[in-house]
């Protein structure tokens, strides 16, 4: 193959890839636009928020969430295998972009950032979102690291968004230092993994592992486990999983509620997406069963889409087809390792988050620990996914769709909670739970929205949080039935116990706001009553309260989204 052919192939690949990459391109364009518009003097007249919101809506539309309906999206590797597009990518990316739209509306209503800062802040937000979109589609070790950096580095600056504040700058510094350290550790793990398998492309790594796993020496296994642990440090940091959660309460406390919402929702969703990507990426080689079942001729066609150097690939792939029957079976130890590691982390994270939340007096710290706990619940879904990926696709599909449902629900309930915190801060200049007491007298609608969001976070039926939890727990129970692995039963019990544990601290907030007398010295009456805030909150809370009636379509959607991923 000469250079010309290679370049032609590249051109084809890139053109095809671009059509899947439109949302990211729009995000890039908005970043440029936010920069360029400032060059002209029209800044005083044009509020850049409108540019941002328009960009986010366009980007959301380009993410085409409806494509996955009916399981219509096949797994496609784009940009020469760096990224992968499938139903899961599209769904999570859409959720993140939808959240971006809601978030921008939220910041407009809450007034932070003000019009001076907004161009910079929105640039950072869009930059971080771009990184998150890449996180959920990464298929390559470099892209994983790059995407994490792209999502994290702007977030560090966002945490210190309100300048001139001691707490804000402290939060930003802590976040930046811990985050950079975790990223460095993760990179070291990535280097070991890449060196051991001589590749950075996840499916290739999986193939290499499947080939060599049986003959690995003790030291090689040690390297593999070490690299897995080191990579999990970086991921655990992004997920705020115990024991790498310590930044979360401080950062949440120090930065404003708007940034908290961004960090706790978009960042978590993306980190979970990446976790799934890595788990499936190195633990499973998709599509091999199909190839085996079909005629061998189908092989090259699939591979040609997958890989850049197709013509050379045809010959070897046919060889590998013969071994492929066992590839996914051979990877079972890898999956078990990932599944058990994540199950363990999830249990500790969940329990710790819930216990630590008990003693909090600041609502943002409380919600930070609640975020940690919820990261634990969501990570629980990965365990059944990994345990049954190679054996029982129905179970794996259920687990992944459960996770997706949880993320969807989580967007609304957590955004609702943080929005209330921000709005109340604007009223009473306080984020102490004690100052919220008796708030129902003066702002009943806001309080009812927060109470619904909190009980949804508990997972109380019929609120939406229950549906997420139910889906995740159900998949664990299903996987337990299918595999009889004891750790899944333990996971289920821990999840259940935690649900009950978490009740008390959410309930305490509700109790203080609803049942106690209004706090001394908190004068809320001077501010206008319901307005945009109430409208926004109701719009965010309604999905939480009503999802149970529309559960079936949403469930059908998430099931469609994960279909092409693992079959």
């Amino acid at each position, binding site marked *: 193959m000469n250079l010309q052919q290679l370049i032609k192939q590249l051109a084809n690949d890139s053109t095809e890839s671009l059509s899947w990459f439109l949302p990211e391109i729009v995000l*890039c364009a908005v970043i440029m636009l936010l920069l360029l518009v400032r060059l002209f003097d029209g800044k005083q007249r044009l509020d850049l928020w409108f540019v941002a919101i328009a960009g986010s809506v366009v980007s959301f539309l380009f993410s085409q969430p409806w494509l996955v309906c009916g399981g219509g999206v096949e797994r496609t590797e784009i940009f020469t295998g*760096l990224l992968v597009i499938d139903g899961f990518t599209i769904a999570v990316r859409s959720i993140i972009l939808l959240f971006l739209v809601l978030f921008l509306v939220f910041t407009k209503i809450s007034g932070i950032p003000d019009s001076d800062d907004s161009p910079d802040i929105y640039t950072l937000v869009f930059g971080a979102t771009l990184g998150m979109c890449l996180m959920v589609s990464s298929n390559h070790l470099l892209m994983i690291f790059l995407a994490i950096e792209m999502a994290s580095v702007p977030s560090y*600056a966002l945490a210190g968004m309100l300048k001139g504040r001691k707490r804000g700058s402290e939060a930003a510094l802590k976040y930046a230092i811990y985050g950079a350290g975790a990223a460095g550790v993760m990179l070291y793990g990535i280097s070991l993994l890449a060196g051991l398998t001589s590749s950075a492309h996840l499916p290739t790594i999986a193939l290499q592992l499947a080939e060599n796993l049986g003959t690995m020496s003790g030291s090689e296994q040690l390297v593999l486990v070490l690299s897995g642990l080191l990579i999990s440090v970086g991921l655990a940091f992004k997920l705020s999983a115990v024991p790498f959660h310590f930044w979360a309460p401080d950062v949440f406390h120090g930065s404003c509620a708007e940034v908290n919402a961004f960090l706790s929702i978009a960042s978590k969703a993306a980190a979970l997406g990446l976790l799934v990507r890595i788990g499936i990426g190195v633990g499973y080689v998709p599509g091999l069963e199909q190839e085996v079942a079909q005629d061998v001729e189908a092989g090259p066609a699939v591979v040609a889409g997958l890989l850049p150097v197709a013509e050379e690939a045809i010959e070897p792939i046919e060889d590998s087809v013969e071994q492929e029957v066992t590839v996914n079976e051979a990877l079972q130890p890898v999956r078990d390792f990932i599944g058990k590691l994540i199950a363990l982390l999830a249990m500790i994270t969940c329990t710790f988050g819930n216990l630590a939340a008990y003693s909090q007096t600041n609502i943002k710290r409380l919600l930070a620990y609640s975020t940690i706990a919820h990261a634990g619940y969501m990570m629980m879904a990965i365990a059944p996914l990994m345990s049954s990926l190679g054996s029982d696709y129905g179970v794996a599909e259920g687990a992944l769709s459960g996770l997706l449902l949880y993320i969807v629900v989580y967007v609304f309930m957590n955004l609702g909670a943080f929005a209330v915190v921000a709005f109340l801060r604007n009223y009473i200049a306080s984020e102490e739970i004690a100052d919220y007491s008796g708030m129902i007298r003066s702002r009943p609608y806001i309080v009812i929205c927060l109470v619904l969001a909190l009980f949804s976070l508990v997972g109380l039926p019929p609120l939406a949080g229950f549906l997420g939890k139910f889906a995740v727990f159900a998949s664990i129970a299903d996987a337990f039935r299918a595999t009889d692995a004891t750790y899944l039963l333990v996971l289920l019990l821990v999840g259940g116990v935690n649900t009950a544990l978490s009740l008390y601290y959410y309930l305490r907030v509700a109790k203080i706001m609803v049942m106690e007398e209004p706090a001394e010295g908190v004068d809320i009456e001077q501010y206008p009553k319901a307005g945009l805030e109430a409208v926004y909150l109701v719009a965010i809370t309604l999905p939480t309260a009503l999802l149970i009636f529309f559960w079936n379509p949403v469930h059908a959607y998430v099931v469609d989204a994960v279909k092409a991923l693992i079959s």
Partner: protein
Amino acid sequence: MGILAAVNRVYWHEFFFMLFAGISVVFAVCVLLTQNIVRMAFYLVLSLGSTAGLFFLAGAEFVGAMQLMIYVGGTLVLLIFGVMLTAQQRYVKMNTHPTDWVLATIVGGSLLVLLIGAAAGVDSWKDASASKKALAELDVDDARTATPLGLALTGVRVDKLDSDDPALANGQSGYLLPFIIVSVHLLVVLIGAAYMARTKRSATAPVGRAERARLNIMQMEHETDDVVYSASKQSSSSLLDSDQSQAEESTDEAQE
């Protein structure tokens, strides 16, 4: 070439490896042990600089050059700027708590033993025959990695097309996307850094909700704008310049 020359060459390779590795490790240890932030920065420059030598030895001369230019010439200079801006007398030396030392030594030591054990335990990694063979056949033409690197950055991979392992030949990706997307990242980061470093503009007073929100946050922490702003004005203006120029530099270099 005679036998003597060949032996000489092998000797030099190992000699330089030991030299660069030694400098790198020794000065890294110095970075760790010194309590003086200015010296720390200096040792770091030496340590990372000699790492570039290791890159050259391993045949990655382009990366080695970039290491010198971006890392030593850019990032570390940036750090040194930071050191100079904050190096008031009392912050130059800050002693680590002894308990931290003990803990860190124990944890770090066991991690080191584990990592070295792992690194030195894998057979295919300590197989000297490959390196001997490669060095024996080394030709000046083979050493040009800049061209394939440049091609890879535009998305075309020309190495390993004839690899024995089919899977490895497949898993090669062009790096056009990260090459482009990283520039967007650098732009965002540049704006972020500039935002963090500069004082708050107050060309227009915030109105309505925004004002209320800002005032409330200030009130919550019992701070006022003025005190903080006046303190930050002086240093941040100078930082802004250095910051931008460095970041721009790295952007340019990355796209070379």
